[in-house]
């Protein structure tokens, strides 16, 4: 195939575009999606199966290993998958490189901060004194 006028010198494209770590990112997004398929169905089913959704019942559920452990996984995998997904959307729609970097950095802060908050709250429930 002739490159013709549409070709760009390799020095100008190295490190740019979606292929920087594209393969790894793509795979991670799909692996976490499969995990979230299971964890998401678990979460909805658990909420439906709880006899009530009052604070006491929910605390009892999240203090048990079968509640706390999948919830911790849901938080970690959920925030990671959200971060990966938002990156795809941002990389697709924000074309200016500085803004794209800023948006991705903001999402990283939000995901790590939000995930830490959620995990802290869960730990306080799971390890807290009996309500």
């Amino acid at each position, binding site marked *: 195939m002739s490159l013709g006028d549409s070709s760009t010198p390799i020095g100008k494209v190295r490190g740019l575009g979606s292929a920087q770590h594209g393969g790894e990112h793509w795979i991670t997004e*799909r692996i976490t*999606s*499969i995990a979230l*398929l299971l964890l*998401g*169905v678990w979460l*909805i089913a658990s909420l*439906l199966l709880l006899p*009530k*959704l*009052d*604070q006491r019942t*929910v*605390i009892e559920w*999240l203090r048990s290993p079968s509640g706390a452990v999948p919830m911790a996984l849901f*938080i970690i995998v*959920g*925030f990671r998958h*959200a*971060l990966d*997904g*938002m990156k795809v*959307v941002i990389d697709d729609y924000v074309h200016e490189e500085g803004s794209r970097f800023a948006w991705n950095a903001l999402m990283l802060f939000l995901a790590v901060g*939000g995930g830490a*908050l*959620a995990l802290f*709250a*869960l730990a*306080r*429930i799971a390890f*807290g004194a009996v309500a």
Partner: protein
Amino acid sequence: MAASILHRATGVALSIGGLAILTWWLFAISSGPDAYETFTRAARHPLGLIVLVGMTWSFFQHLLSGIRHLVMDTGATFELGINKASAILTFVGAVLLTALVWFYFLGVAK
């Protein structure tokens, strides 16, 4: 086309709104009865219900179109007819599952 853009839109909604609500809910549970009461009052408010039903629908739409995309990642179902049918299946499935969940939640009157 519609399935693809919906997958993104619901993904963004779940990333921002869904995870924020989950975090708020966990914090409310861990913070005591007053905080939990504030959360449940917001959740029972008509606007709160609309948001929660919207999140439930986003969850199922994203889950079903996500499965569809995983199948397409294997290189399967690119035939126009099957492709369109599977897209429609995700729309119908998401609405049905959302309705089922909320009929259950509201019907049992928790």
